[in-house]
């Protein structure tokens, strides 16, 4: 089953073309890593999938539901805001800068959306949040404020917060890039656990080790285009394209 399908999407910021006709699909249970130099458009691609950015041309489908389709003039047409919210709520997102709510405790950060958006009973929301905190190993921090946590702990809370909405797809936008090197491991471990549970994941990352070990498929992007995609064993050992090879030589 296709969880995400984007077709020929184009996106410009003030005349600067950031995405130049990207097409890709993500299947159920698949872990896709998107790698590439900074400015290659990989974060923008991820942000277009869940409507944090709007596309100029092309179409986007999530679990078969269109959020944007290509009109007769080639320009993208979005469905209504309400439908976008409903469809995109099937995706969870983890940001580079965590974006936790600083005025809420760890537990409150996690139960906020289920209660307010999902209309879940508070007691049930707390129960589930505690289960998620246990899963990411932070149950003892439930009453702390985000400012009292390390970067790695914040990111694990952010993952738990996203999971609380029971998404079927998780999007990770450079989840370890803002972390001190010694803290990336604890976050990658949680992500690896998720992958083992067959969560559908799209991960924009600079962690080549993670991409190689955990991803089912690696997409290499450069200058707003997908240059090459394939199994990590192929991409990392025998890339077909020169640009992929040059990039990997730089980062590995």
């Amino acid at each position, binding site marked *: 089953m296709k969880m995400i399908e984007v077709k020929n999407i184009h996106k410009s910021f003030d005349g600067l073309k950031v995405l130049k006709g990207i097409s890709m699909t993500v299947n159920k249970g698949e872990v896709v890593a998107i790698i590439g130099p900074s400015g290659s458009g990989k974060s923008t691609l991820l942000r277009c999938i869940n*409507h944090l950015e709007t596309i100029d041309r092309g179409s986007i489908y999530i679990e078969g539901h269109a959020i944007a389709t290509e009109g007769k003039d080639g320009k993208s047409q979005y469905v209504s805001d309400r439908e976008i919210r409903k469809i995109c709520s099937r995706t969870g997102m983890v940001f580079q800068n965590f974006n936790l*709510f600083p005025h809420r405790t760890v537990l409150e950060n996690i139960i906020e959306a289920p209660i307010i958006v999902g209309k879940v009973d508070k007691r049930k929301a707390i129960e589930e949040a505690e289960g998620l905190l246990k899963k990411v190993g932070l149950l003892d921090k439930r009453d702390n404020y985000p400012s009292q946590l390390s970067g790695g702990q914040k990111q694990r809370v952010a993952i738990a917060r*996203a999971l609380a909405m029971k998404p079927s797809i998780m999007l990770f936008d450079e989840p370890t890039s803002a972390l001190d090197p010694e803290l990336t491991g604890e976050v990658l471990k949680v992500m690896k656990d998720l992958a083992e549970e067959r969560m559908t994941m799209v991960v924009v990352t600079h962690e080549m080790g993670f991409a190689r070990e955990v991803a089912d498929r690696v997409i290499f992007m450069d200058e707003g285009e997908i240059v090459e995609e394939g199994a990590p064993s192929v991409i990392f050992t025998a890339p077909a394209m020169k640009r992929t090879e040059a990039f990997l030589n730089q980062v590995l």
Partner: protein
Amino acid sequence: MYVMIQERGKGAVMFEWLNVMREGVSEAWMPVLQYISRIIVPMAEGTIATLQVFIITIVLSIPLGLILALGRISKFKILRDVIGVYIWLLRGTPLMLQLFFVYYGLPNFGIVFDSMTAAWIAFVLNYAAYFAEIFRGGIQSIDRGQYEGAKVLGFTYWQTMRRIILPQVVKRVLSPVSNEAITLVKDTALVNVIGVGELLRAAKIAVSRDAVTSPFIVAAVFYLVMTFVLTKLFNYLERRYAIYE
């Protein structure tokens, strides 16, 4: 006498002298205290009018200021511009002039208010403009990531504002709002120009009637007490909001 003092020693002399001073002083102050006790009732009545203007202004101008702030950053250009002009007018002209306009100017258009009503209408409209700018700044100072974090969790715009953005704005605007509130306590003195019997007016009446200046001192003490209470209140709020970050 001298010998007696010698015998009692230095400390006792000091004590004696202080006693004389105190009796002398309190005798000298007696008429002043009696006078103050006479004027305290009209001044307390004036303070009630002052507090009335203060409370009505705070209670109405903060929500109005918030609505204006949200309009000022909305996606509707016309709304943004209209509110921009409103803020420019209200911040750009003297509050006293606005008082005169509401009390003496509007009757020309058939709109007549008693002096107290005119006073708080002018104050609410004026202070809302200042609060609008404080809140707009506060809202815009919140990191874009907070909106995105809420959006990807499925929050609507209003849910995001109410649950995520505004609670954080409260903390950031506390100190400018406390500034405005303290200024407002003293600005209420302006309403005596349209004949509202507030605290400063009560003092002025006593001063001109009795040809003394002590009512001004009493008025100052009243204002200081009010601003002291406000300062303590805002300090308490700031401490309460300091638990995060």
